[in-house]
Structures are given as C-alpha cells and as structure tokens.
C-alpha cells in the first residue's frame, strides 16, 4: 500500500478503535499517537512521492496543505488531551460523548486528508462534505442550547454551501465532457487541468461562480460567514483550533484548485477579481466587527474571517509574489490562530467564562498563559518580528506595486483590526486580575511551539522553504 493509502488508513483505523475504547486517558494517548503517525507519513511524502492514480495523488501544491494539516492535527491532539481532562473533571463531557469526540476527531482528520490528496473533484467534494458533517456533530457535543443553535446554523449554511459546490462540480464535468469524453475521466483533476484550455469558457465561468460561493461559505468569507463565529464559540476549543487552523484551509484549497482550472483556459473570465472583492469585504467587515465582540472565542473567530479575507485577497491578486505571500500568510495564520485557541481554551477553563469583560489581568495570575496570549495576539495582529508581519508586508507591498488603489482598503482593514485586537488585549492581559487564580495543568508545549515557529519564520525564513513556496506560487499562476 502506498503512503497515500496509509495516510487515510491511520485515521480511519484510529476512529474505529477510539469509538470502542472507554476511558479518556487511553483514548487521548491513542489519539495523539495516531496523529503523530499521520504526521510521520505526511512528512515522508516530502521525500518519497508515490505515483498518483485516478483517485488519489499528491503534488507540489497539496503537499504544503497536507504537511501543515498533519502538523496542526498532531499539536491539537496534544492540547486536546489536557483540555479534555479538565472537561471530564468538571463533568461537562460524559464518557460516552468523550468516546464520540475522539472518534470524530480522527474521522475529521481522515476527511481532510482525503480532500487534500483527492485527484478527483467528485471525491474531493465528498470529503469536504464529510468534514462538514463531522464538525457539525462536534460543535454540538456539549448539547447546550447555544451549542445546538451554533451546530444547526452551521449545518444549514454548510449544507447549502456544499450543495452549490456540487452544482459547480457538475458544471465542470459538463464543460469537460465534450473534450475528454464521458465517464470517470471528466472528474480526474490531472486530466481536467491538461485539457482545460479546450473547455467551454462560459460553462467554466458559471461553474466557478457556484464553486466560489459554495466552498467560499466553508472558507468563511463575508457575507457567507454567519456560521463561523457561532461554531467556533460554542464547540470544544480543540475543534475551534482545528476549524480555524485547518478546515478553512481545506476549503480554500478547493477554491485554489478550481482557480487554477480557470487560469488554464485563456477565454474564461479571470477568477481574481471575485476573490479580491470577497477577500476585501471579509477583511474590512471582520475588522470592524472585532470591536463589538464580548466573547473571547468569538473575537478570534472574527479574526479568522479577517485573515481568510487577506489570504483570499492575496491569491485573487495572483502572480508569483502575491501567491507566495498568500501561502506564507496561510501557514502563519494556521499556526498562530491554533496557538491562540490553545491558550484561550485554558484561559476559559481557569476563569470559568468566555466573557471578555470577566477576564482581566492574566499576566498577573497566570504568567505563562498571559504572556503567551500577548505574544499570540501581537503575532496575529501583524506586528513584527512575527511571521505574519512578513506575509502581510508582502501582500501590501505587492498590491502597492500593481494596484495602488486596492492597497488603500487593504491597509485600512489591517489597521482597523490591529486597533481592535490591541484594545481587547489590554484588558485581558493587564490590570487588576479578575477572580479565578487556580493553577492549571495546561500543556504549554503546543502553543509555545507554534508561536516559536511563527517567530522563527519572522526572523529567519529558511531558503529551502522559500524556494519551495516560490515554486508552488508559480504553479498557482
């Protein structure tokens, strides 16, 4: 069996086993081990690339996503172990739900891996649908009124998005049929991209509109974002971390794939302007919405919308430099945002609340958590010396060079968001501490490890990775 098969087999087998095992210590350990094994297999793909088939294949673009996804998947499983231990102690999760939670975590990993290595647009759609349904169930796992509302909203909006994406997929097949013939060939990605220049451009354009709206809902681009803050705020925090750090990327990956398809057809409309518009709207909208948040997880959920807007904007601009910036920003955002959610998860547990007004003076009561939060928020707000500063700088400078007028709203959005985040950080981290000074048994390694990577990327970016990202950026056109 090739490495690709193993990458799917590990989470699938782990999910089956975890569904049967009682006891959270054992299942949390097993969850970590399975995620670590998947990370090992994903890393091996960097060196030995198995040959692709009609269904599965790995190429230079997808491998960036696969490795990132396996890495954050593993660190989140480490965080999840200590987070879940606390939830079990306070009785928020019953043993049966815990078993369900762990099994679903691995099913989600399976679905995301499948979406990333699929060489078939139908299979990719099935995988993203599976990932959506899994996360819906996980968001609802606490069974509170708020969690159910969030899951219901996510389910309805996600299903509509997924349905539109399927219609787009069918349209791509219809466009491909006269050129590549009937049957399976019309859905195989490698065949599609090789023949895209001969497809009917009008059908491709129409297909892209549906795909962009459909998968764009999953990316969380405004005005299709309504599910995102609720789903982040009401589910278990490890799921917020995986949603922001990984699932949004997977949906973005699908959009990028179809963007490449359109770019390969000279007569089709340029997909860039649509992505640029949606990206800017998301950035500015989320920037202003950040000021009105009262819930700490919602605050960072809106920050995810903002950053997905920046990434969509960068990829929409296109060209080697902007694509490079987009890839870098995506990687940095995944690492930083999941680190922030790890920190926020522990903070919400010690303070017993998610209300921003009730969390004050963290650096006094919990120095490590507090200062990690400070570092994380400074990183996500785009301050130097963190990696997000580098990528935002690249996005802004490449925009100034090509479309100076577009740079104005872009910079405005960035500054608005920066102001909101720093204003909130002030109250959270400093000042008179609020009650709740109990020590925590937090696992600091995942959050500090992520932030260290982001810091390292801001200070010194290894030339090897730079070359590799540049290569992928050229592929994206």
């Amino acid at each position, binding site marked *: 069996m090739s490495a690709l098969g193993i990458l799917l087999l590990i989470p699938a087998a782990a999910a089956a086993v975890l569904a049967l095992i009682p006891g959270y210590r054992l299942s949390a350990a097993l969850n970590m081990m399975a995620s670590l094994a998947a990370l090992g297999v994903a890393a091996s793909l960097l060196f030995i690339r198995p040959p692709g088939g009609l269904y599965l294949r790995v190429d230079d673009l997808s491998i960036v996503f696969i490795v990132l996804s396996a890495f954050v998947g593993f660190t989140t499983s480490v965080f999840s172990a200590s987070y879940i231990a606390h939830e079990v102690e306070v009785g928020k999760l019953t043993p049966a739900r815990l078993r369900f939670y762990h099994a679903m975590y691995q099913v989600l990993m399976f679905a995301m891996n499948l979406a990333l290595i699929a060489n078939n647009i139908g299979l990719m759609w099935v995988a993203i649908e599976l990932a959506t349904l899994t996360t819906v169930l996980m968001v609802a796992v606490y069974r509170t009124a708020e969690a159910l509302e969030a899951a219901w909203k996510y389910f309805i909006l996600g299903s509509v998005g997924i349905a539109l994406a399927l219609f787009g997929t069918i349209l791509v097949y219809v466009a491909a049929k006269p050129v590549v013939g009937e049957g399976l060939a019309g859905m195989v990605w490698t065949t599609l991209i090789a023949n895209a220049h001969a497809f009917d451009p009008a059908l491709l354009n129409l297909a892209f509109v549906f795909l962009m709206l459909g998968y764009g809902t999953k990316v969380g681009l405004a005005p299709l974002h309504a599910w995102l803050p609720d789903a982040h705020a009401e589910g278990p925090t490890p799921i917020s971390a995986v949603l922001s750090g990984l699932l949004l990327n997977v949906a973005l990956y699908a959009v990028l794939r179809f963007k490449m398809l359109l770019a390969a057809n000279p007569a089709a409309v340029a997909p860039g302007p649509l992505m640029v518009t949606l990206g800017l709207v998301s950035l500015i909208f989320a920037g202003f919405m950040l000021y*009105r948040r009262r*819930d700490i997880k919602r605050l960072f959920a809106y920050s995810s919308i903002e950053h997905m807007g920046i990434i969509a904007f960068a990829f929409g601009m296109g060209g080697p430099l902007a694509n490079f910036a987009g890839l870098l920003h995506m990687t940095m955002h995944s690492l930083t945002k999941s680190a922030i959610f790890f920190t926020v998860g522990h903070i919400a547990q010690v303070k017993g609340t998610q209300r921003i007004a009730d969390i004050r003076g963290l650096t006094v009561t919990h120095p490590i958590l507090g200062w990690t939060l400070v570092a994380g928020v400074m990183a996500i707000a785009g301050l130097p010396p963190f990696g997000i500063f580098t990528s935002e700088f690249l996005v802004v400078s490449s925009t100034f060079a090509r479309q100076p007028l577009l740079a104005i709203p872009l910079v405005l959005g960035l500054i608005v968001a920066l102001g909101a985040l720093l204003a909130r950080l002030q109250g959270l981290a400093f000042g008179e501490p609020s009650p709740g000074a109990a020590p925590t048994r937090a696992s600091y390694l995942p959050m500090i490890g992520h932030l260290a990577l982001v810091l390292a990327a801001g200070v010194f970016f290894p030339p090897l990775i730079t070359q590799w990202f540049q290569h992928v950026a050229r592929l994206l056109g």
Partner: protein
Amino acid sequence: MSSLDFDIAHLLAGGLVLISLLMLYQDRLTALINVFAAQAVTLSLSVAWQAYIQAAPHLYITAAIALVMKALVIPIALHRIIKRLGIDRELDQVVGVGPTMLAGIGLVALSLVVMLGVNGEGDQLAREDLAFALSVILLGLLMMVTRRNAVGLVVGFMSLENGLVLAATGAKGMPLVVEISVAFSVLIAFIVIGVFLFRIRERFETVDVTVLDRFRGGRQ
C-alpha cells in the same frame, strides 16, 4: 436522439420545476410533505427515463433510491415527527404567498437566461436539463429562506438536493461515485437532522427556529 425521448425528458424535468413552485405556497406542513413526496416520485421517473435513453443501467439505482428514500421513507418519517410534535396543523410562512411566487418566477427566469445563454457546442438536452435543475435548486433555496419551521427548512433543503440529482443525471456519463454520494448525503443529512429535531424539541419545546435567535442577544 429522437424527439420523443427529448420531449419526455423535458416534460419530467419541467414537472419538477412546477412542483417546486407548488411547494412554495403550501402553508401547512402535511401538505408540504405530500407535495415533496410527489416531487420525489417525479424525480425518480425522470432519472429512470434518463437511464433508459442514455442506456446507463446504473442510473436505475439512483432512481430507486429516490423513490424509496425520498418518496416513501422520509415523508412517512416526517409525518410521524410532526404528529408527535403536535405541529401538523400549524401554519408556516414568513413571507406572503404573492411575493414568494413572484420571486420564484423570477428565479426560474433567471436560471433559464443564465443556462440557455451559455452558448457553445454540447447537446441541447443536457443544457436545458441544467436550466431546469438550476431552477429547482434556486427554488429550494428560496423555500429555505421563506420558512421558519425546522421541518420546512429540511424539506426545502431536500428539494434543493432533488435539483442536484437532476443535474447529475442529466450530465451524460457522470461517474457513479457522485450519484451514490448524493443519495448518501441525503441519508446522512436526514439522520443528522432527525437527531437535531428531537434535541431542539427537548431543549426548547418548539421547532420554531426563530426562538433560537434569542440566544444570540447577550453574547455578541
């Protein structure tokens, strides 16, 4: 392709659009579910006809799934649910019938303009099928917007999926993977929704989704 084949395919696809429009103004849930079942029967006939004219026997499976699941099992289950919840006589319509129907007609016109305006080669039947399918999808969306009852939302979503199946079967030679996945997704969706309906009932003593909105108030 003979013109009779073409005409029958047209008739059935057009029937689906017509039934979608009928669903828009059903203000009682029992009637809504019955009309949905009628749409599922029409869909299954349409898929079976496509299987026949395309000589694609695997499409008969899709037709059978549509008939059994969507025309029988799901409507019966939904009837039982609304009876158990005691909402089988409730009225459910947010926007008036007149504006909804006008919007529906507008959406059908829009999808015809969009799909038939796409010029280029390719067979006419596929293109017109897609126009009908897009109409059904957009009408399903419209229905989801105009209903506030969770059961109405679910029916709207399933009628949207009917449009997807119509599109998938109209695209000649589309791999089986997709058809089965569509059928499966309906099944999964239904299980999930079933769970949710009961949970919602348990927590709120109502399936009116507007009640859910109050939870947003204090948290922002």
